[in-house]
Structure formats: C-alpha cells, structure tokens
C-alpha cells in the first residue's frame, strides 16, 4: 500500500563520475530505466529496498483488514472487503515481480520480512478494533497511499512506474469505498457515528505519520529526488493529503483530532499540530502495538504452508520425469 517515508534507503554508489553523469542525463531526459539497462548500484539498491518495502506493506496490510472479513456487517460489505484485501495481495504480487527484475527473489524478500531485516509501512502495526476502522483505513490509509503513489507512476524505473499505474486505479477505488463506509456510519445511529469518530481519532495521527519524517530530518531523500524515484518531499505530500482530507471530514461531520489544525490563508493550506515523533520512531523501530503479531502471522502462514509448496514442487518434478520417460 505504501512506500513514502520508509526508512533506510541508502543511495551511496561507487561508479565513475562519467558513468553517473551519463545515467543522470537519461533520468533528466525523463527516459525510463529498464531492468537490463546499466544503472548505478545505489540506484538499484534503493529501488530493491523501496519496492520490497512497498510489496511487504501490501502483504502485511492484508492482515488488519482481513481481521474484519468474517464480521463484516452486511453481505455486500463482506464481498467488497474480500475483494479489497485480494487487491492488496495482487499489488504485493506485481511489486514483488517488479523487484525481481532487479535480481532479488520473492523468497529472499519474504525471508527478510520474516527476520525483521526488511521493513513495511508501520501503519499496519496498529490494530483494527471496530468495523469503522475498515472505513477509516480505506479513506485515510489508501488515501495517503494514493498521494504517494500517483507521483510514483512517473518514477524513472519502468517496471515500478507501470506497476503503480495499475495499483493507483485500485487504490482510488478503495479510498472511495472507505469514504462511503464512513459516510454510512456518520449518517447512521449515534453508536455508529461514535464508532466512526473513535476510529478517526485513532487513525488520524498514524496516517499523517505515513508520509515520514519532516524534510529537515529525512535522510537519503535528495538522491532519490535526483534519480526521480521520488518526486515530492514528505512534507509536500503530507500537506496535500491534509488539505484534501480536512474538507472531507467536515462534510462527514467528523472532527479531526488536532486542536491546532487551522486554515492558513497565506500558504493556502492547513497548519497542523505537532506530530509525536517519539511515537513514530517507536513504531518504525518495531514497537508498534501489533508489530509482533503481524510478523508472527505472516511467518505462521509461510511455515504452515511449507508442506504445500514442497508438494507442488515435488508433483511438478514427478510430472516432468514421467513425461521424459514417456518420450
């Protein structure tokens, strides 16, 4: 679902200046870089890391929403949520495939996720406590993902950019669907409206933290910008998101839990209150409320499925042997 503001992409690289200049010229000319093209090692490493984290986020993101499939309060909502969670799995699959073009296997990336070496978006380390969370996640989390991913459709690396075009269409459908769930709750019984407000209260700050640290504190950003992997800074995207979301909340009659949020006429945008960066770093470093459960669940799915994957391989091998014997 997400990649902006993820931590630790290291763009350092060791090629000759001549090579780097020639590469930069292609980037500046808005040429797409394809997997077989020569590229700086730092560019490749940054992309592997970013696409891998993005793919893991899609996969881990299936868990908090999957938590409500069996309890969705109408058959229509149940079907829509199943389809949404399935879409997220599909995004994970395209992204793993895009990363594989750079020479890492899905298996390797999966192991890094399970060992804690690879990160994923920390938003998914918060729990989904009520049905309203499903609406709020679609509205805010998919909404934030779109802000981040629309510029990625123009990312200099071809396979990533192409994957994002398809993903963005689905994310914007998820965002509208989420908003519609929240709208139904906001117009529903007092209990439903309270449920929606409570979910907004819990998800607002983690959602705006999704854009990552303030620009002044964000390492590695400049190189990603120069290589056109990234096109907007964390603060720019966060601002766009807040400006788009505040009127939507007002329309719903819900209150954004930030007493310092106010319109700034001069910058034609909203000012927001102080983000709790201690919480942000705590969650990024793996101490979010659901962090251990998410990895435990993913590992359990993988480990419990090992015999199935082994059987599929063994069966394919038997077929090959039989076919060769018959020929």
């Amino acid at each position: 679902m997400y990649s902006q503001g993820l931590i630790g992409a290291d763009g350092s690289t060791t090629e000759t200046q001549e090579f780097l200049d020639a590469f930069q010229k292609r980037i500046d000319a808005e040429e797409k870089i394809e997997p077989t093209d020569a590229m700086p090692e730092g560019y490749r490493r940054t992309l592997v890391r970013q696409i891998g984290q993005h793919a893991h986020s899609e996969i881990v993101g299936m868990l908090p929403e999957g938590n409500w499939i069996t309890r969705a309060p109408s058959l229509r909502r149940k079907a829509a949520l199943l389809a949404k969670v399935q879409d997220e799995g599909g995004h994970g699959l395209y992204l793993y495939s895009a990363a594989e073009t750079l020479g890492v296997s899905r298996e390797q990336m999966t192991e890094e996720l399970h060992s804690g070496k690879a990160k994923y978006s920390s938003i998914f380390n918060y729990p989904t406590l009520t049905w309203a969370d499903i609406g709020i996640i679609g509205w805010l989390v998919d909404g934030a993902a779109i802000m981040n991913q629309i510029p990625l459709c123009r990312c200099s690396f071809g396979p990533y950019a192409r994957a994002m075009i398809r993903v963005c269409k689905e994310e914007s459908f998820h965002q509208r669907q989420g908003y519609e769930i929240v709208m139904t709750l906001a117009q529903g019984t007092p209990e439903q409206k309270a449920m929606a407000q409570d979910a907004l209260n819990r998800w607002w700050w983690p959602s705006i933290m999704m854009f990552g640290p303030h620009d002044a504190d964000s390492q590695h950003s400049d190189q990603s910008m120069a290589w056109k992997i990234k096109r907007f800074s964390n603060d720019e995207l966060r601002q766009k998101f807040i400006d788009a979301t505040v009127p939507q909340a007002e329309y719903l009659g819900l209150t954004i839990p930030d007493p310092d949020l106010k319109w700034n006429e001069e910058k034609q945008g909203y000012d927001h209150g102080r983000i709790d960066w201690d919480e942000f770093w705590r969650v990024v470093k793996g101490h979010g409320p659901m962090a251990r459960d998410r990895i435990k669940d993913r590992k359990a799915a993988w480990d419990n499925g090992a015999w199935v994957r082994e059987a599929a391989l063994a069966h394919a091998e038997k077929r090959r042997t039989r076919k060769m014997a018959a020929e």
Partner: protein
Amino acid sequence: MAIFEAILELADDHLVLGHRISEWCGHAPMLEEDLAMPNMALDLIGTSRTLYDHAGKLEGKGQSEDDLAYLRGEREYRNCLLVERPNEDFAHTMLRSLYFAAFMRPYWLKTLEMTNDETVRGVAGKAEKEMAYHIRHAGEWVIRLGDGTEESAARMRDAVAALHIYTDELFESSPAAAEAERAGVLPVRADLRAAWDEVIGQVFAEAFLEAPEVPYPQTGGRKGLHGEGLGHLLAEMQSVYRAHPGATW
C-alpha cells in the same frame, strides 16, 4: 413456503462455504492462493446473495438478504454439513471445495435445462461456470497434494477420511427441496450421483486416492442439526449486525 426453504438451503450452503474459505484470507500457503481463494469465496458469497434476495421475495415478508443471513441462528441454518466443516489444513480445504463444486456444477447444468424459475436460471448460468473453475482449481490441488510428497499424500488421505462421510448428504433432498423439485424449480439431487462420481473418480485416480466405503453417512444439516463449529461461525459473522439492531451499513 417450501420453495422459499429450498432456496434458503442452497443459499446457506454457499454462504457458509464462502465464509469458511474467506477465513484463509491473508494466511494462505502462498501469495497466489491468497489471490485465488478470495475469488472462490466471492463466487460463493455472490451466489448466496442472489439466492437470499430471491428467497426473501418468495417468502414475501420483507426479509432482506442480510436479515436472512444475519438473523437466523444455528438451528435455523439449513446448510449441509460438508460446507461448515472447519478449514483444518489446505488439503481439507481444497477437498471440501472439490466435493461441493463437483456436485454443484452438474446441479446448475441440470437447473439450466429444467427450471421454470427465471431468477434461479440466472444464478445457474453464472454459477455453473464458476463451479467449473472451482473443480479445476481445487481438483488440481488435490492431485498435486495426493501425488506430491509423503507428507502431502498423508494429509490428503486424512482429509478424504474426514470429509467423505459428509458427501452423501449432497444427494439427499429435504421435504422442501423435494417439493421444489416436483414444482420444476430445482433439479432432483439424487440424479446427480453419476456426474459427481465421474469427476471425483478422475481426480482421485490421478491423486492416488481411494474413496472409502461409508457405512454411516453424516447428515442432518437440512434439519438444522449441525456440528458444533457452525454456532461459532455464525456468532462471529453476525456479531456486528446483531449488536446494532436496525442499523444500516
């Protein structure tokens, strides 16, 4: 009323199986299956929705699809026992789908030939193709696992031993279903045995599995006599809906 009940039985089969399959979502043995299983669940839940809606109209008391799905308890659910069996492992899950789809595909094909109910015909036209896909998908897995490793073959045999005893119920018609059959709405269940045997026989031959003799088949779902698992499934599924009577979602 009998036709309402017969349609409800079918709807319950599809919803309960769809719900069971959806329990895998995000926990499948591989990403490809995390994408394939929701498709199967969506097909089944989609069919259940059309059938509930139709049943509600036949009954004529203004019950919506959600009223029928969310406000009946375990003694009122009329699904067959096979579909409520727990997921256990991937072998059980795929075999359960194969058994069900191998019955439903000929059922819907027969429905297309004979039914005088236009809504049911519409469902049959769509569901027949979906069930063909479920047979293929689940059947391929039963073959892969049956003819895979020692462990997978053992698990597949365990699944057959656990689930085969629930398959006879597929061919039984409740009094309500029998009336719907006489009225030309639904096909006669007992007539579908040969078609089911053929599909299962082909898959089992390739999977090195044997269908066991079943001296004492397990039945009772159509009378609301379920296993203990269904109550938990419904308690979970219905919890939010029931906690907010009359709310719109």
